[in-house]
């Protein structure tokens, strides 16, 4: 365990752990903005919709190059499918009378169903490499190829930088999109940017946390941070810290004990930080406190 925590459990594992940690750091603030915009479970629909994209990308790259395991291609397929999933939710809401939660549930189940269908189809093919596809379900950093680990770490670092660079814009559309529009900001493009960052986090998280649980890395650190502070800057920083620590500890634990699944362990660490924060943090509502003092945000 100590070996893994100090990044000396092998070069590949160390790069993979750094990648997971950077992802956790990026997911914190992205999650804060997602919560503010009340889109918590839209990310769940997006992440479950990535699976058919991964399978389709596997088949395409197998057909084109003879190797289905090219991670950049798989992630590109995942990103396109996730975007389709979000568009699907919005279309169902706009063109039928189904409520938002029903639309999310329908897209989530259809996407995941299509993906598992694809997985079972690919498993019957007489080719190699398809066995690695189901690691996207619950994530596994162990045994990642070095080039892939570099790719994940690089994209995750870019994500952290993007969140920092666009912090002001994200804050604007999260709090007061009407004011932002009146003040001449390109609100629609900023909205697209925010959704893009969300999708990027989901897609990068597929390898370490997996598509079923990635939404937890967005929600849990952000909610925990909100228990400690009201200031958006501090909230984003705290969420980044909680996300990073959870991802780091979870990835290290699963590198040390190979039967521990990476993604689920990361989520359990994040859940532990939340459970410790809940009774002690200044902004959690103590039992029996007057409700009127704390209007829901």
């Amino acid at each position, binding site marked *: 365990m100590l070996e893994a925590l100090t990044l000396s459990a092998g070069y590949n594992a160390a790069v993979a752990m750094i990648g997971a940690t950077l992802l956790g750091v990026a997911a914190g603030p992205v999650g804060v903005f997602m919560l503010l915009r009340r889109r918590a479970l839209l990310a769940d629909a997006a992440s479950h919709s990535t699976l058919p994209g991964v399978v389709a990308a596997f088949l395409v790259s197998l057909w084109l190059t003879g190797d289905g395991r090219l991670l950049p291609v798989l992630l590109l397929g995942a990103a396109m499918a996730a975007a389709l999933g979000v568009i699907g939710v919005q279309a169902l809401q706009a063109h039928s009378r189904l409520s938002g939660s029903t639309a999310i549930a329908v897209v989530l189940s259809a996407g*995941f*169903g299509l993906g598992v269908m694809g997985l079972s189809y690919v498993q019957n093919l007489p080719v190699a490499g398809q066995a690695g596809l189901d690691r996207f379900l619950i994530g596994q950093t162990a045994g990642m190829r070095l080039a892939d680990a570099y790719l994940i770490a690089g994209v995750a670092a870019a994500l952290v930088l993007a969140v920092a660079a666009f912090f002001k814009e994200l804050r604007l559309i999260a709090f007061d999109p009407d004011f932002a529009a009146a003040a001449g900001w390109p609100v629609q493009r900023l909205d697209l940017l925010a959704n893009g960052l969300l999708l990027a986090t989901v897609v990068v998280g597929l390898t370490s946390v997996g598509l079923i649980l990635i939404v937890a890395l967005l929600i*849990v650190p952000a909610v925990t941070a909100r228990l400690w502070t009201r200031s958006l800057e501090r909230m984003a920083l705290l969420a980044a810290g909680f996300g990073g620590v959870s991802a780091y500890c979870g990835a290290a634990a699963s590198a040390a004990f190979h039967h521990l699944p990476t*993604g689920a362990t990361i989520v359990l660490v994040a859940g532990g930080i939340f459970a410790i924060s809940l009774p002690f943090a200044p902004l959690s509502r103590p039992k029996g406190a007057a409700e009127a003092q704390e209007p829901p945000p």
Partner: protein
Amino acid sequence: MNPMLAIDLPALMIAVAASIACALPGSLLVLRGQALLGDALSHMVLPGIVIAFLATGRIASGPMLVGALAAGLIGAGLIALVRRAARLEPSAAMGLVFTILFAAGVVLLETEAARKVDLDLNHALYGHLEAALWLEPAEWADLLGLEIWLTAPRPLQMLAPVALLLALALVLVFKELRIASFDPDYATLQGFRPRMIDFGLTAATTLAAVAAFEAVGSILVIALLTCPAAMARLCTDRLAAHIGLSVFFASLIAVAGYTTAATLETSASATMAAAGGLAVALTVIVRHLRRRYAKPPAAVPGNAPNSEVRPLRPGSG
């Protein structure tokens, strides 16, 4: 051995029974805008099922039901607690609780249960509908005897009573549900407590989710809960018709999904989920085309359909 009788018939019956058992509570969830509660519950039963499995060492209906019901109700309680204590909107509180509980179930499954062979992660994620075998009836005429049904595959022995129980419960409380849907204020005056409806629906959904677990796993349940009910929601405004159509569409999706899966040789439960999503999309498209090409109805002011079902608690979840 008659392959139709030994393999396809039990699997189809399990698929239809699972779909109907889920469509009954699912129709109410969709009506109340709580589809994601179904998503949360279907994830949260996993740790309960795994703990029951570890305690007994085998897949047994009774302990699994108890464990899953306990996990579902504890999870629902935790969601309410977190929602209040952390001042969260319902969907964020749900997302927080169900992912953490599901993660706990996955860790338990991978570290402890993996040493035993009966229950593995794939099984928990997408079920094992294809494993249903029923060798006892040698020919179709055997199905007429009553004793033969006692040898039916275990998932069916769990699903059929659960589906019947849920249907019966729905019939018994139908009047109350209708009043609560039409006129929540009057219902409160009459002394129906919304909390009782919440509790009953949570328990019913958990029961359906765990009964369907062996057949379709813990994630694809959400398709069975939501898709038929979403189609029915698009077709009718009457409560009885909504529930009836949900059950009808559920059976249709199960049969279509299973036969497609048998042809394509894909996972049966996943194909049912995909068929459900496709069916909802088709319903939306058909309704649009009909509205576009149908004559616009003459607008009669003051004659709005007053039979419209209002969500009992709009917008939650």
